[in-house]
């Protein structure tokens, strides 16, 4: 089995996988530099990078509009390996719901425990309807705020199945810079706290969903005409920019007569 097939199979079974060395060190450093430029550009345009509704203090730097700011991030979101993992879990058709960054600087704290799917869609959570492809632009360790997750929690189909001691089951996603971490939308997790004195932990979160779910970002309204013009048909489909919309399942059904055969004197 190839390394990628093994990763996809682990993602399906365990709800997560880590693929190391996806970006070489030089490209990882470039991406991190460009991320900080995006953070500065974000602030310059009046979009704050600290959101009190998400984080308890300004040690978390959030960047929300990576796809608009830099072609490098428009390439990462459609990286063939990322797309392979997405399609292995969600099926061939999917939407890019969001692409954001969270740089946890020393002193940043944990968010609440949740699964991405539980925040949005009703129970039961039987199938994966979403996943995160997390790009590690720095080494990620427990100390610098690695995302903490609960193994096998993607099998909880309702809140009632969550054990009372869920918080004690958390363990960190540790990975080297240049890795990606794929995480099923049903995995219960929280951001870690950065308890180091001087290390940043920079992660990009590519969030992908089933095509019938509403994206977190309204790409039609959000992307500039210049950015839209730079996208090919496949990206337009994955961003939901065109008219395909939410009719995919219905149009695959067949006509009554084709389905059941012609009938005499039907009603």
């Amino acid at each position, binding site marked *: 089995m190839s390394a990628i097939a093994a990763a996809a199979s682990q993602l399906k079974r365990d709800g997560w996988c880590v693929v190391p060395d996806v970006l070489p060190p030089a490209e990882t450093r470039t991406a991190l530099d460009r991320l900080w430029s995006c953070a500065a550009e974000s602030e310059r*345009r009046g*979009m704050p990078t600290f*959101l009190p509704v998400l984080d308890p203090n300004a040690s978390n730097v959030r960047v*929300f*509009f990576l796809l608009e700011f830099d072609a490098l991030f428009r390439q990462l979101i459609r990286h063939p390996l990322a797309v392979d993992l997405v399609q292995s879990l969600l099926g061939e058709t999917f*939407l890019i719901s969001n692409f954001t960054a969270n740089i946890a600087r020393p002193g940043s704290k944990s968010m609440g425990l949740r699964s991405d799917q539980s925040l*949005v*869609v*009703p*129970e*039961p959570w*039987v*199938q994966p*309807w979403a996943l995160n492809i997390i790009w590690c632009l720095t080494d990620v360790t427990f100390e610098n705020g690695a995302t903490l997750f609960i193994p096998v929690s993607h099998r909880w189909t309702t809140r009632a199945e969550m054990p009372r001691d869920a918080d004690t089951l958390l363990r960190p996603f540790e990975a080297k810079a240049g890795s990606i971490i794929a995480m099923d939308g049903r995995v219960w997790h929280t951001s870690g706290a950065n308890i180091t004195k001087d290390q940043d932990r920079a992660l990009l979160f590519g969030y992908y969903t*089933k*095509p*019938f*779910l*509403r*994206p*977190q*970002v*309204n790409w*039609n*309204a*959000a992307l500039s005409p210049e950015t839209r013009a730079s996208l090919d048909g496949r990206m337009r489909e994955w961003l*939901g*920019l*065109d*008219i395909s*919309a*939410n*009719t*995919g*399942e*219905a*149009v*695959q*059904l*067949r*006509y*009554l*007569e*084709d*389905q*059941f055969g012609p009938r005499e004197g*039907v*009603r």
Partner: protein
Amino acid sequence: MTVAQERDVRGAPIAVPPPTTDMTQGLRNIAEYGLTIVPNVLSGDSLKRARDALYRAADSDRARSREQKFGLDYAHDDTNRRVWNVLSRDPVFEDLAFHDIAVAYVKAMLGWPALLGNISANITGPGGGEMVLHADQIFIPEPWPAEPQGMNVAWCLDDFTEENGATRFVPGSHRLNRAPGPADSEADTVPMEAEAGSIVVFESRVWHKTGHNRTQAEQRAGVFAWYTRPIYRTQENWFLSLRPEVRQFASEEALILLGYKTAGLGLVNGASPA
């Protein structure tokens, strides 16, 4: 004349509830049957304006060869017609999509905020065939959540009769909480007969289909406004296709239903688009 007593999925006599303007009763009807009829929502001039606007749009599409087929329709005739995105065709359809009674049912059945997924019309013509029996939330993989994820408000712009292709329902089928399969194709259906100007409110799990139009010369027009909980992608991409004035003059409620006023999903720069 005796009519064979047809049975619903639980073996109870099949029927649709009588029309009511009492919303409490209407919601009870929806819980039990999956649908309710509200009479006289449009009448006189308001009905005529909506009806004229719809037939004008349909005739215009036919004259310009702009008609689009729909996968769930009977494919082998050209008598049934669909008009998509009527909201962009005439302001009278804003009156329908954002009508107080429709929005009150949306809030009661789906909660708030909710989205308008689509508003399109279906005109059956003489000889028009039946649709595939379906539930409107079939795009959601099963097992389905315990509550309906969407609902339709069907505006009858002509009388809906058994003969002219009234939408046919399997009352109570929503309580099975699953899509109909091939084995259900023979389920007994009942035509949802209603006078022009009525609305039929039905939840997204109840099985239904367009009826067969057996008349020689009658058309029957219905406008179907489809609403969902706010987590689902809309069928119509409003940000691509909406006539700009609709947004410009929209009420707060309409902006929410179209996704311009939002929280959590459908954001721009982390904030609501409008």
